[in-house]
């Protein structure tokens, strides 16, 4: 905790030096009813929702993760914004009238920014499509674009209905990722699986959230569809060895298998429907066109 405290003190000194500036931004923050003009987002998920809903010039900065093509669907768009690293000092100097943050990752920073008089809104990570709808509506309300948000929710519902209308040959699926982790109920990936009409074998294996499953147990669970998530890191690690194990290869050779890019369900947003579509097509036994997910 010591470095945190030292950091807080440093920030306080900065705060004193910029007292006038802070007062000015406090005046901005006080008028919460007004539409914010200078928004800074510090979380990958709020970054993407804000990019989708804000008008030109309203969103000032997004987090560095938003520009990472492995994690962010809107990586190209994100390059048009200033990048922040979720540090209080950095955000302070940008003098935003609204700070958007995740509910878990940058708690200390958010608390500090609030003490300095900034208006900060925290978003819970989405674990279901209801959460996605709620977060879209909330983001729309915060940015003063309720009608855009409503249109986006309507489009999401339409896309979801369309995606799940396709036929399915598979009944059950396993969401298998690095280090033999399997996603179960309470995750957005599980919600996407549910939306595509598939049962998650994680329920059978007694896994809530994400849990490690020995390869033996996965083979005995016998899913019709094996869903892996592709992530291309610059260097290998043992964590990805489970995909190369001969027993896993034999399993996925006998079953239907599909790879869904992680970025589609790290954050819940309209693009998460694309994951449902990929799953649905795989379950119907149709070939997957690469590049669809872009």
């Amino acid at each position, binding site marked *: 905790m010591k470095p945190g405290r030292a950091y807080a003190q440093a920030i306080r000194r900065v705060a004193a030096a910029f007292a006038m500036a802070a007062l000015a931004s406090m005046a901005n923050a006080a008028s919460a009813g007004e539409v914010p003009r200078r928004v800074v987002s510090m979380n990958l998920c709020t970054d993407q929702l804000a990019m989708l809903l804000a008008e030109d010039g309203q969103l000032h900065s997004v987090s560095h993760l938003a520009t990472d093509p492995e994690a962010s669907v809107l990586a190209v768009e994100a390059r048009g914004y200033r990048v922040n690293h979720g540090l209080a000092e950095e955000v302070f100097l940008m003098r935003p009238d609204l700070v958007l943050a995740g509910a878990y990752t940058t708690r200390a920073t958010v608390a500090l920014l609030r003490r300095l008089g900034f208006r900060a809104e925290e978003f819970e990570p989405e674990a279901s499509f209801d959460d996605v709808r709620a977060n879209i509506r909330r983001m729309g309300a915060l940015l003063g674009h309720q009608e855009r948000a409503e249109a986006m929710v309507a489009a999401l519902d339409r896309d979801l209905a369309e995606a799940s209308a396709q036929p399915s040959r598979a009944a059950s699926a396993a969401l298998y990722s*690095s*280090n*033999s982790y399997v996603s179960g109920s309470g995750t957005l990936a599980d919600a996407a699986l549910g939306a595509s009409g598939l049962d998650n074998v994680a329920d059978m294996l007694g896994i809530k959230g994400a*849990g*490690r*499953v*020995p*390869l*033996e*147990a996965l*083979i*005995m669970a*016998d899913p019709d569809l094996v869903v892996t998530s592709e992530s291309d*890191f*610059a*260097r*290998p*690690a*043992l*964590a*990805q*060895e*489970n995909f*190369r*194990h*001969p*027993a896993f290869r*034999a*399993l996925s050779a*006998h079953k239907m298998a599909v790879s869904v890019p992680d970025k589609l369900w790290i954050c819940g947003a309209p693009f998460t429907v694309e994951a449902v579509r990929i799953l649905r097509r795989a379950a119907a036994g149709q070939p997957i066109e690469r590049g669809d997910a872009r």
Partner: protein
Amino acid sequence: MSEDARYRLVLAGLAMLVAVLFTLSLTVGPAAIAFSDSLAGLLSDDRGAIALIMREIRLPRAILGLMIGATLGLSGAVLQGYLRNPLAEPGLLGISASASLGAVLAIYIGLSAALPLGLPLAALSGAVLAVLVIQALAGIRGGTLTIILAGVAVSSFAGAMTSLALNLSPNPFAALEIVFWMLGSLTDRSMAHVWLSGPFMLVGWAMLGCLGRPLDMLTLGADAAQSMGVGMRRMQFLAVIGTAASVGAATAVAGAIGFVGLVVPHILRPLVGALPSRLLPASALGGAAMLLAADVLVRLVAPGKDLKLGVLTAIVGAPFFLWLVWKTRRTML
């Protein structure tokens, strides 16, 4: 009962124990498969789920448990005889940790993906380097204290470098794998690992196996052994390269597993007598039995938690080590 008869009895008993534990290792696992089904699955021709699990997951795990255990037991016995030091063991001397470092560099830089033999060779180089450094630091007739101090230095340095290499990797999963390299595990290893490490371990065993007689003579002292025609250089070559090849290959696929090489020779020495030529085969079998037992327990004690092997071997090994230090201190004073 004569010495010979007792020695044969001990060997036969150990071989039986290894056979039982090997079968147990094949039949214990997270997928609840009946005993008879599992053995049938191993031998049948079909490609069903049970056959797949038995052949591609449990068989390589059991084979690796047996071979790595034998490697650790054998190299522990050889190192104790060769360095004439009761505390010598690949784990304590930092040979396993250095082999880990070599393997980590090979895997996370991408060498092992580009060059299949890169992994065991890198681990072997790490192990050779560790043995040579320890010999240089402690001298060939180094006392207990200097060898252990050198071992502590080498293993903590290699451990720190392993952590550094994993922390610097751009792969977000790498840093979590420090535990695997420090404590060792056989979870979900495959036949590919057996083919990769097996030949190196066999070559290492052959080299260490040649050392039985020379080590017997070495018990009379280095000068006496030399006068009886033991080539010290050849012996050093066999001991260093044999240990490095077998321990390096074992560590490359299963991480550093400690204490097996320390505990097993000490337990067996009173049973087979003090002659190293008898202790070597017995220790190999004993090491295999100990590691197979640990690997079965890992699956029984905390299924689904992926408990590391080194945790169990240390629970047995560390108190034993303390007792040994206590005993050694008394005799040395």
